[in-house]
């Protein structure tokens, strides 16, 4: 199947007076139609930068320095403004972490929804109204909420409204950047349950960006783990849960306290993520890695398909060593 989105060797830098900072360094990732792919990473790993690069929403000082992005076979990096406007929202939409910041505080929900629909050719009043009501129903909001201002809604309702906006034009891909991080867990669960139902019904693909790996494991078909601007591992969720190939992915899986098992089972990974301004040479994880040897500090491991399971990709000189497997 042709991927919906194909990112190849993407390099993004932030231009700074003291030297350029490379925040994404050779990221390659495909998203298939209807797939939920999780992008896990810590703050500063570059996960939001990837979302903005895909939609060409990066602004100075961020610039794409290399690589390719293909959307349904079309070259995104060479698209002109009209082509980008046609792609954004109608084909690829986004849900951000802060619904309050994503919404316009001086317009009602309905007025903002109308703007979105009008910009993409729905102009008839009756059509706008019926579409608005249908979208509210989709995310379990009442039609009356169309007449409300963002501040009159709870945080969860605002995020539901943002999801309705993102689905307004029936996109093929919805990028969700920490969509429920600011919400309480019970609300988070209700909203994600709804997103999954809609995804199954409408068939859009989701790029789900989060630092919350346990949550992602419940949602995603595949999980990509990003560390300091490079992908470490991309595996089907079930395979990752059985055993990560990359030591960082494995460490992350064990870093979260849980409600089951031994109480003090969670283990921090030694050290801290590097600053993007001074990433370590070689493998970027090597200063924190228990498996690192001299080679790891010199040579960046290539991003390769795992020979024993071609559905998995990994970048590690010692990939799979923890599981006792060999490449």
């Amino acid at each position, binding site marked *: 199947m042709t991927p919906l989105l194909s990112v190849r060797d993407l390099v993004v830098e932030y231009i700074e007076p003291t030297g350029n900072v490379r925040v994404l360094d050779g990221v390659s990732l495909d998203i298939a139609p209807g797939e939920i792919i999780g992008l896990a990473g810590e703050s500063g790993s570059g996960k939001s930068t990837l979302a903005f690069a895909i939609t060409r929403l990066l602004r100075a000082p961020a610039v794409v320095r290399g690589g390719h992005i293909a959307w349904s076979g079309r070259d995104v990096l060479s698209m002109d403004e009209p082509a980008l406007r046609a792609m954004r929202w109608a084909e690829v939409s986004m849900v951000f972490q802060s619904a309050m910041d994503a919404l316009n505080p001086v317009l009602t929900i309905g007025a903002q929804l109308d703007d979105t629909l009008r910009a993409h050719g729905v102009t008839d009043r009756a059509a706008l109204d019926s579409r608005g009501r249908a979208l509210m129903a989709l995310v379990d909001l009442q039609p009356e909420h169309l007449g409300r201002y963002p501040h009159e809604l709870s945080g969860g309702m605002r995020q539901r409204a943002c999801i309705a906006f993102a689905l307004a034009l029936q996109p093929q891909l919805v990028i969700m950047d920490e969509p429920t991080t600011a919400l309480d867990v019970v609300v988070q669960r209700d909203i994600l349950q709804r997103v999954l139902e809609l995804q199954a019904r409408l068939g859009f693909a989701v790029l789900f960006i989060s630092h919350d790996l346990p949550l992602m494991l419940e949602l995603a078909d*595949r999980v990509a783990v990003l560390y300091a601007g490079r992908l470490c591992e991309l595996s089907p969720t079930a395979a990752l849960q059985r055993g990560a190939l990359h030591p960082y992915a494995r460490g992350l899986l064990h870093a979260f306290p849980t409600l089951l098992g031994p109480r003090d089972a*969670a283990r921090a990974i030694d050290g801290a993520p590097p600053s993007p301004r001074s990433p370590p040479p070689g493998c970027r994880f090597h200063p924190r890695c228990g498996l690192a040897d001299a080679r790891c500090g010199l040579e960046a491991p290539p991003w390769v398909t795992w020979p024993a399971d071609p559905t998995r990709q990994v970048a590690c000189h010692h990939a799979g060593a923890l599981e006792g497997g060999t490449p």
Partner: protein
Amino acid sequence: MTPLLEVRGLTKRFGAHVVLDGVDLDVGRGEIVALVGESGSGKSTIARVLARLERADAGRAALDGAPFDLLKHADVTRAYRARVQMVFQDPFGSLNPVHTVGEHLTRPLRLHGRTTPQGERSAALALLESVGLAPAAEFIDVYPHALSGGQRQRVAIARALAPQPALLIADEPTSMLDVSIRAGVLALLRELRDQHSVSMLLITHDLASARALADRILVLSAGRIVESGPTERVISAPEHPYTQQLLAAVPGAGPLLRRPHTGAPP
């Protein structure tokens, strides 16, 4: 034995809005109590009232059996501050960017008479070692910007320990840290209790963190304690529907999110 901290009927209003409605809580000596609640439950207000940053509208409290007046700020003595210290959520906002790590520690050491001028540097070094910032000599003269979030939070914990408090109030101490290092800060807090018998009131929205650290859990909803008990009992056999709902919503713990699957993933 009287508990270290005893609070009865703590009530706080903001205008007409009652944020804390008769909260009772005890923290025993050497005990870690987690106060778990969602946003708006009033959990941070409890921390702020007990840290004496906010006045209560009603309620009684005693520390080491000695009553103190939660309703007045005038009653906040240096002796109270020496016994009760806070660790805040944001290690970027809670440290002073123009003070070195050493200055963050020597100030409370001096203020609370825990050191002599000659001894303050070695006392600060010892504090840094105790929070796992070793070798301490590499940390004492740097400014906060040179440290990672986890290292900053350890400095904030060292600063709170400087007056040798009996009680640490930690308000979401790991929620702004990178996920790969959070467990290390939880382990540090556990170790401080185990080795130095510091009691703790851990304020958190995260039941899994509460379970990892606390001896007892109090569940707060809309300004009231709806359930309390030993950690394992609250987690494995929650009695209040609200606690049950919270537990079921923790990723990886409750029933999985239902994915009405239409086909195999590509």
